């Protein structure tokens, strides 16, 4: 009997321990829900999450720190509004974040103070992809950059993605929502019943920060205007020195227009001549004329399917410097061929609002083997003479060149890069890279002129 009593007492103790353990976990869950429901719940929940994350990962988990109280963030020092007649924050910076699941977040600060956040599914599978991904920098709703690549000839790596615009007050919330979405994707997947449960529970408890509807969306190459791969007519009959185009992707823009991105490669003197560049008398310094450059052509259509604009972008860096510079009438800067951290992005844009511009754009596309895009058919059946698209853009459109530094302690707006990363709540579990403009020029009709608004 004594033994049975002892065992019973032992069992009673064990039961108490187990019951207590279950009760502690239940209480932890209830506490988390209650914290979310309190008026100060968000900050408390963030603090609670931060410390749980720190404990669980032994301080190595890249946990996003809680946001401090709004009152304490009000600056006490006077701020500079203008400086030498040029507004501050006019620097265009790009921060590229590669998250653990291979998704890439590109944060661009625009000269109007707005942030442009592009989220792409990268095929690189989480590898450090650096700067790239078809960056299109928009200034005051005018596209001025584009298709920046850290390495010469690096292909633009787009699968699918969305673009969000946010001001300084909204960017933190947007980044939180993106990171929460990543956490949910990791633990519940991006769809299915488990994800539904996760979304519902986090919505009910008020912890979840939902992603807004994207301002722009784009899809991977091969998907054309009406989402039918067959509708994109690309022939193999590109001009000499120009590779046949491949569709990089499409983007539905905020203003209802749709842009199709094409990629082709311009090789050597023949490629330049095919695109209307007079190569006689060109002096190439540092980069050989035998090189090649990747050309990204963006064709924009309005909601009725009419072509409204064609733009071409090339990056001058490394061996592509000579060809890209010659194509866009830029200076063949020997330094660009050798430096690892710098690059120059050329872009020419032409509105197709008159027959002459339309003809130049059609010939330019034909030279790249583009016979149709979606419902649009290229009326140009054969290449005639010099195409002169860049020349037409110089005369009637916009041609720009922007220099970027990709290997510096980038000043992101007025914040040091590292601080900004912390401010945005980007965890250390992501890899970042950044670039910022160091100078910009535009063609004023007769010569290159300093482009103050987009110069650092």
């Amino acid at each position: 009997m004594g033994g049975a009593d002892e065992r019973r007492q032992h069992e009673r103790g064990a039961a108490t321990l187990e019951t207590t353990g279950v009760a502690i976990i239940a209480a932890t869950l209830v506490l988390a829900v209650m914290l979310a429901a309190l008026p100060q719940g968000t900050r408390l929940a963030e603090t609670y999450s931060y410390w749980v994350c720190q404990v669980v990962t032994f301080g190595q988990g890249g946990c996003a720190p809680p946001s401090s109280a709004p009152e304490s963030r009000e600056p006490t020092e006077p701020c500079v509004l203008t400086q030498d007649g040029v507004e501050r924050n006019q620097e265009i910076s790009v921060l590229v974040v590669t998250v653990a699941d291979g998704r890439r977040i590109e944060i661009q600060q625009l000269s109007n103070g707005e942030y442009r956040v592009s989220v792409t599914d990268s095929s690189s599978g989480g590898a450090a992809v650096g700067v790239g991904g078809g960056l299109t920098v928009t200034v005051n709703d005018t596209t001025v950059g584009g298709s920046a690549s850290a390495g010469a000839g690096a292909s633009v790596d787009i699968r699918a993605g969305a673009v969000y615009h946010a001001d300084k007050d909204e960017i933190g919330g947007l980044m939180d929502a993106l990171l929460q979405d990543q956490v949910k994707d990791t633990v519940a997947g991006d769809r299915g019943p488990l994800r539904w449960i996760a979304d519902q529970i986090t919505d009910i408890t008020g912890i979840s920060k939902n992603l807004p509807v994207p301002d722009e969306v784009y899809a991977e190459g091969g998907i054309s205007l009406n989402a039918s791969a067959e509708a994109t007519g690309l022939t193999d009959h590109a001009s000499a020195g120009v590779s046949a185009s491949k569709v990089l992707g499409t983007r539905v823009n905020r203003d209802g227009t749709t842009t199709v991105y094409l990629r082709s490669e311009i090789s050597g003197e023949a490629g330049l001549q095919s695109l209307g560049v007079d190569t006689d008398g060109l002096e190439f310094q540092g980069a050989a004329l035998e090189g090649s450059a990747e050309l990204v052509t963006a064709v924009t259509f309005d909601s009725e399917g009419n072509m409204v604009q064609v733009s071409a972008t090339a990056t001058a860096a490394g061996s592509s410097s000579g060809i890209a510079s010659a194509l866009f009438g830029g200076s063949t800067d020997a330094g660009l061929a050798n430096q690892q951290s710098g690059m120059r992005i050329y872009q020419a844009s032409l509105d197709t609002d008159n027959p002459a511009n339309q003809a130049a754009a059609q010939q330019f596309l034909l030279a790249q083997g583009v016979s149709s895009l979606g419902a649009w058919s290229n009326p140009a059946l054969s290449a005639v003479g010099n195409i002169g698209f860049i020349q037409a853009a110089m005369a009637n459109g916009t041609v720009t060149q922007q220099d970027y530094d990709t290997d510096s302690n980038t000043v992101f707006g007025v914040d040091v890069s590292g601080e900004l990363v912390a401010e945005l709540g980007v965890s250390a579990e992501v890899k970042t890279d950044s670039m910022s403009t160091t100078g910009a020029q535009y063609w004023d009709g007769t010569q290159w002129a300093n482009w103050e608004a987009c110069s650092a």
Partner: protein
Amino acid sequence: MDLLLTLRLAAVLAPGALVAWLAALLLTLSAGSPTATVLLRTLLTAVILVLLTRLVMRGAYDGPGLVGRAALAGLLAYLVSPAAWAGRALLGQLLVDPGPASYAIDLVVWVALVAIAARTAAVRAPAVAPAPYRLG
């Protein structure tokens, strides 16, 4: 341990694991660290599996096949757990991409936890007839 107890254990473990999964998500969502969420989810789920198994096993009589039946209950619970379907139940997805491989890893760990908990639980002594009624 009879069939009823096996079913009872499975019926307790499945929702218990789901609650642990949800708790880990809610507790770490704001921190924005997928790794932390997966680690906490694994920790909480493991604790829940062990504690609930030991709680339920208090009502079982010791005997041959006890651990095997507990493992069977663990298997049943795993099969009906939504998180397990996606290979996102425990820490498997930290080692391999979520899918069949992580499903298998999580299954092994899950069943092992339940079996160990059952083996070490304070179960009742084997049910034997009182001395006057024993044969022989």
